[in-house]
C-alpha cells in the first residue's frame, strides 16, 4: 500500500467517524443549537467524502446548498424562535426511547446484513473527475430535462406558498359579500384543540 492509498484510507476513516458521531450528536443532544451546528459539520464531512470519490463539483454543490443554505436556514429558524418553553413531561418517555432505539438498531442490523450478503459490482465505474461538471450539465439538459424543468415549478410554487403563509397583511373581507372574516376553517370547532387550550389556560 503506497502513501496515496493510505492517505485516502485515513481521510475516509476520519470523515466517516465525523459523519457517524456527528449524526448521532444531531439526534441525541438535547441542545438544539448544538444539533444544528453539528448538522453543518456532518454536511461538510459528507462533502469531504464526495471529494474522496473525486466528485469535486458535487462536493462544492453540497457545501453551497446544504451548509450555505439549508443549515443556515435551520439556524435562523432556531435563533429567531428562541422561545423558552417548559414542555410537559411525556409519560413513558424512557420506554419509548428504548423502543425506538431498538427499532433503529434492528434496522441497522438488517441493513448491515443485507449489505454484506449483496454481491456488489466492484469496482464501480471510474470517476470522471474534472469532466463531471460538463457531464452533469449534459444530463440535466437531456435525459433529466423533465425533472429539471419540473423542479423550477416546484420551487416557484414553494416560494409563493411560503410567502402566502408568512405574509402579515391578511384579507379581512369576504370578496363576495364584504363581510369580515377570520381566515380560519369555516367549520368552527366546539372543543378547542391543544394549542388553544394552552393559550387560554
Amino acid at each position, binding site marked *: 500500500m503506497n502513501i496515496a492509498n493510505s492517505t485516502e484510507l485515513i481521510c475516509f476513516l476520519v470523515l466517516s467517524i465525523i459523519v457517524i458521531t456527528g449524526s448521532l450528536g444531531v439526534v441525541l443532544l438535547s441542545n438544539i443549537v448544538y444539533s444544528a451546528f453539528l448538522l453543518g459539520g456532518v454536511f461538510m464531512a459528507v462533502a469531504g467524502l464526495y471529494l474522496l470519490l473525486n466528485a469535486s463539483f458535487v462536493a462544492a454543490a453540497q457545501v453551497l446548498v446544504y451548509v450555505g443554505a439549508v443549515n443556515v436556514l435551520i439556524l435562523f429558524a432556531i435563533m429567531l424562535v428562541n422561545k423558552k418553553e417548559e414542555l410537559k413531561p411525556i409519560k413513558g418517555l424512557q420506554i419509548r426511547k428504548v423502543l425506538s432505539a431498538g427499532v433503529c438498531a434492528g434496522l441497522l442490523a*438488517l*441493513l448491515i*446484513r*443485507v*449489505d454484506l*450478503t*449483496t*454481491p456488489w*459490482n466492484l469496482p464501480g*465505474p471510474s470517476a470522471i473527475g474534472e469532466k463531471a461538471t460538463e*457531464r452533469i450539465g*449534459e*444530463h440535466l*439538459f*437531456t*435525459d*433529466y*430535462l*423533465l*425533472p429539471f424543468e*419540473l*423542479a423550477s*415549478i*416546484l420551487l*416557484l*410554487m*414553494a416560494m*409563493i*406558498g*411560503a410567502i*402566502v*403563509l408568512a405574509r402579515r397583511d*391578511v*384579507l*379581512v*373581507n*369576504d*370578496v*363576495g*359579500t364584504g363581510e369580515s*372574516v*377570520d*381566515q*380560519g*376553517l*369555516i*367549520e*368552527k*370547532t*366546539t372543543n378547542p*384543540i*391543544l*394549542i*388553544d387550550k394552552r393559550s387560554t389556560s
Partner: protein
Amino acid sequence: MAAPENLINLSLNAAAVAPEGVVLLAMLGTLIVDLAGEKAAAKWSPPISYLGLGTALILLGFQWNGPLEPSFLGSFLADNLAIAFRAVIALSTLISLLISWRYAEQSGSPVGEYAAILLAATLGAMLLCGSTDLVSVFVSLETLSVASYLLSGYMKRDARSSEAALKYLLVGSAAAAVFLYGASLLYGISGTTNLEAIGIALIDSPTPLAALALVFVLATVAFKIAAVPFHQWTPDVYEGSPTPVVAFLSVGSKAAGFALAVRILIGCFDAFDTQWKLLFTVLAVLSMTLGNVVALAQTSMKRMLAYSSIGQAGFVMIGLVCGTEDGFASMILYMAAYLFMNLGAFACIILFSIRTGSDRISDYAGLYQKDPLITLGLSLCLLSLGGIPPMIGFFGKIYLFFAGWADKQYLLVVVGLITSVISIYYYISVIKMMVVKEPQEASEVVNSYPLIQWKTIGLPPLRIALVTCVVVTAVGGILSNPLFQWANSAVAGTPLLQQVIALAGERSIG
C-alpha cells in the same frame, strides 16, 4: 451520452406533456391575474383554471390510443393507463376548484394563489402518473406533496389547519426520505434510474437488497394512498385542512398514488411479484377493516369521510393485487366512480359548512326539510360510496369483487364484502339523521338554517359541481357501459399492463 452537437437534435416528443403544459399556463395565468388584486383574482382565476383544465382534458382525449413513444428520453410515457389517471386527476382538480371558491372567499384566503398552488399540485400528480424514471417520479411526487402541505395549512389563522400542515409535512418528508433511500438502493443495484431498466436488472439479480428497496418504496406508496398502517396522518390532516383541499387530497392525490403504485410495483418489481402482492394483501385487509370500523365511531363528517377514504383505498387495492385484465380495469373504473361520488359528497358537506359553519354529523339532523338538495345529493353519494345499487359505486365495487374472485383472492373479497356492509351502516346512519328525524328533533343548526340563495360569487360553480357529481353518481351506474369500455381499453392500450397480464397467464398455465 450523445455528443454535444447531437444534443440539439434530440427528439423529446414533448407533445406528450402538452396537457401538463396547459395546466402550467393556467397556473401562471392565475398568478399574473392575482397581481391585479384580490377582486380581480376572484373574478378571473376561475375562468382561467377552467380553461386550462378543460383544455388539458381535451388534449388527453386526443392522446388516447396514440402512438406510444417515450418522451423526454425515457422520463415520461403517455400510455393509456397514464392518460386515464391523468384525466381522473385533472377532473378531480376541476371539481375541487368548482367547490372551492366560495369556501376560500368566505374564509378570506387569497383565491388566486390557492388556485395556483392547487394547479401546481395537479401538475405534479399528472406528471407522476406517466413518469418512467426514478428522478421524475421523485420530483413530481415532491411537487404534489409540497403543494399539498401548503394547501392543508392554507387557513393560516386556524391552529387546526397549521397543525394539519405541520403533521403532514413531517410525516410526508419522512416518507419522501424513505423513498429516496429505496430509490438510491435501486440505483445502486442497477446503475440506472429508468424504471424499465431497473426491472430488467432486478429480474437478473433478485438480491435481498432489492427486497429492502421494495419495502422502502412500498412504504412511500402506502403513505400516499393512506393504507393502514401508514394512515396515521390522514384523519388529522383531513380534519384540519380546508374541506375543498381534503376533497382533492382524497381523490386526486390518491389517484396519483395508485398510478405510482402501478408504475413502480408492476413496471419495476416484477421479479418480486409474490412478495409485493402479499404485502399489498395485508395492507388492503388492514385498510378495509380499520378504515370502515373506525369510521363508525366518528362524530365529525370530515373525519368520517377520512376514515371511509382509507377503507375505499383498501377496496381499490384488491384490483391492484389481482394483476389481471379485469383487476386493472376495475381499479381504474372504481377510481373514476370514486371521483364522482366522493367529490359529490364533499360538495354537499362544503355547502352545508358554508351555510351553517359546522361539520358535525349530529348537526345534520332534520336537514331534509330545510335543504332538500343537500339531503338528496349527500344521500345518493353516500349510498353510492356504500355500494348500494343502482348507484355507480355498486357497479364499481361489484367489478372489483368479481375480478378478485376470478383471481382467487378469496380473503380479500370476503373482507371487502364484510366491511362494505359495515360501511353501509355508517353511511346510512347519516342519511337516517338527515331524513328520518321529526322537525322537533332537528338540530339547533338546522333550526336556524339560513335562507337558501345561490347569488353570492362562488356559489353557482359549487351548485354546478354538486349537481353534476350527483347526477353522474345516480345515473352513471345504469349507463355505466361506456365507463367499462373506457376502463378496459385503458388496460388494453398499456403495454406495461399487457406484459404483466400475459406473464400471469403463463404462470397460471404453467
